[in-house]
């Protein structure tokens, strides 16, 4: 059955996060030919609406207001719900990001509907929109449907491939003015951590370090390897707690959940809380000096050895390969 699907575009530092485009791809499946409506909420949206159209939106509704400069559940829910009221979508897709996780349950509650969180896949089967999601820290999966009412899901970044960007696509962009008022939480201060470069949750290649890295300096060979591969550096909780790196690099249940094409774990033991954040990676490499380390159980390829010896050699070897290519 065709459905009108609303996709919330998520903005960070002035650009759309990839998960917004992945949401449009999910919407293409869910819509079965129905209209795909992108929704943008913020203080100054510039030309972002065009990006949503290029990635598959048929139409965009924007809500712009000074009070939406920072995400707050009250502000963003008022904005999004006014779009829902006007447009009456039959399905809604958000990213399963800090923002999506915080906002989607409130909207679902307001609309009195079900919500399927953290989907890694969507398909149409037996006339239903079926979502697949990890459960039990990624040790099992479930397929879930919405029994009736609005089909609402949040999708895990980096799992559903975005559509090809088509700059020739055109679509209508309309502004909706919503009354944003009575914000009960106010963001006073945002401490951005010094994560330069690639967003971990969107990275295709991640080189991650654990307590085995032994010091902040110990991360430099990992950074060099990541640079050679055009990837990002991540870390285990162990490394963050030991102050070898910032918590913004943390991967796992309490940190970022990542699904890169290649995950290279260096000096990480492979605790379940870490695996919960990366076991869906397409290819996993483990470098650990303990042959019994749990990380080898999820690794596709493993090297038992000292990371300080292995990682620089790997960087060198990849450099040679990439020069040839």
């Amino acid at each position, binding site marked *: 059955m065709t459905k009108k699907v609303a996709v919330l575009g998520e903005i960070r530092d002035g650009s759309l996060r990839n998960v917004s485009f992945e949401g449009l791809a999910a919407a293409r499946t869910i819509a079965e030919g129905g209209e795909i409506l992108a929704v943008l909420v913020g203080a100054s949206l510039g030309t972002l609406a065009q990006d949503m159209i290029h990635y598959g939106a048929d139409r965009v509704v924007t809500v712009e207001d000074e009070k939406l400069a920072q995400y707050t*559940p009250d502000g963003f829910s008022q904005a999004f719900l006014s779009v829902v009221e006007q447009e009456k979508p039959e399905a809604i897709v958000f990213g399963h990001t*800090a923002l999506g996780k*915080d*906002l*989607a*349950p*409130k909207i*679902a*509650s*307001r609309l009195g509907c*079900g*919500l*399927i*969180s*953290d989907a890694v896949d969507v398909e149409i089967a037996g006339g239903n929109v079926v979502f697949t999601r990890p*459960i*039990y*820290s*990624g*040790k*099992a*999966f479930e*397929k*879930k*449907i*919405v*029994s009736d009412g609005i089909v609402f899901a949040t999708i895990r970044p980096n799992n559903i491939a975005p559509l090809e960007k088509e700059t020739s696509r055109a679509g209508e962009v309309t502004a909706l003015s919503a009354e944003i008022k009575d914000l*009960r*939480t*106010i*963001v*006073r201060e*945002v*401490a951005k951590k010094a*994560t330069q470069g690639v967003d971990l949750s969107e990275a295709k*290649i991640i080189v991650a370090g654990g307590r085995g890295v032994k010091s902040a300096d110990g991360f430099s060979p990992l950074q060099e390897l990541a640079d050679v*591969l055009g990837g990002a550096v991540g870390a285990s909780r162990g490394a963050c707690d030991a102050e070898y790196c910032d*918590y*913004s690099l*943390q991967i796992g249940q*309490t*940190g970022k959940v990542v699904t890169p*094409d*290649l995950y290279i774990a260096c000096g990480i033991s492979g605790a379940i809380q870490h695996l919960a954040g990366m076991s869906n990676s*397409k290819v*996993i*490499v483990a470098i650990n000096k303990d042959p019994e380390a749990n990380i*080898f159980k*999820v690794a*596709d*390829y*493993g*090297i*038992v*050895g000292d990371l300080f*010896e*292995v990682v620089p*050699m790997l960087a060198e*070897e990849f450099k040679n*390969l990439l020069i040839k290519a």
Partner: protein
Amino acid sequence: MNIFVLLKRTFDTEEKITIANGAINEDGAEFIINPYDEYAVEEAIQLRESHGGEVTVVSVGGEDGEKQLRTALAMGADKAVLINTEDDIEYGDQHTTSKILAEYLKDKEADIILAGNVAIDCGSGQVGPRVADLLDIPYVTTITKLEIEGDKVSVVRDVEGDSEVIETSLPLLITAQQGLNEPRYPSLPGIMKAKKKPLEELELDDLDLDEDEVEAKTKVIEIFLPPTKEAGRVLEGEISEKVKELVSLLHKEAKVI
């Protein structure tokens, strides 16, 4: 201060997971307090220690949840409430649980409600914000710091590694992130005392809720284990050979480089 904690009994995901008759096999499995709810319990006790008042821990589920509630009492909570749904509802989802919790909480005049940010088994992270919405109070999720003065509240929220300082007011619902505190272990005297602390058991009828109102909005149609990965290949030989082989495998076999 009137403090409530939402506590879920969860399967310990450190355990091996198997499937029997289309469901996760719970036979002989270890059950624990959801780890993020332990942070919530600890924070609640600390709030009471500095502001006075009472900590009530609430859980929705079956009879077995009593054990985890007793543990929370042994940590230092004052009262526990088990909303036992065993006889009334066979299948529930996040809407079900939130609706039941909100119905229980609506006339309790809670100053603050503390939940975990996510349950490690079903892992949706929905229940906190849903309950807050149903009670029409503000919420802040994944917090790592909480300061209360009068009815003014300052919270540090973890946002994918960045932190936001948020100002809000009571009544409030927060969800706990790792880093908020170090949960205490129940002491021996704590465990003895817990046996005498009140643990109330309620059913849907006691809450004036019909089964219809809490009917799940979503349905699980299949549960499966990920395809068993072939045992990873641990490379052999001198370090330099292993490194060369790995690069070649990633390039030619896995094709990720």
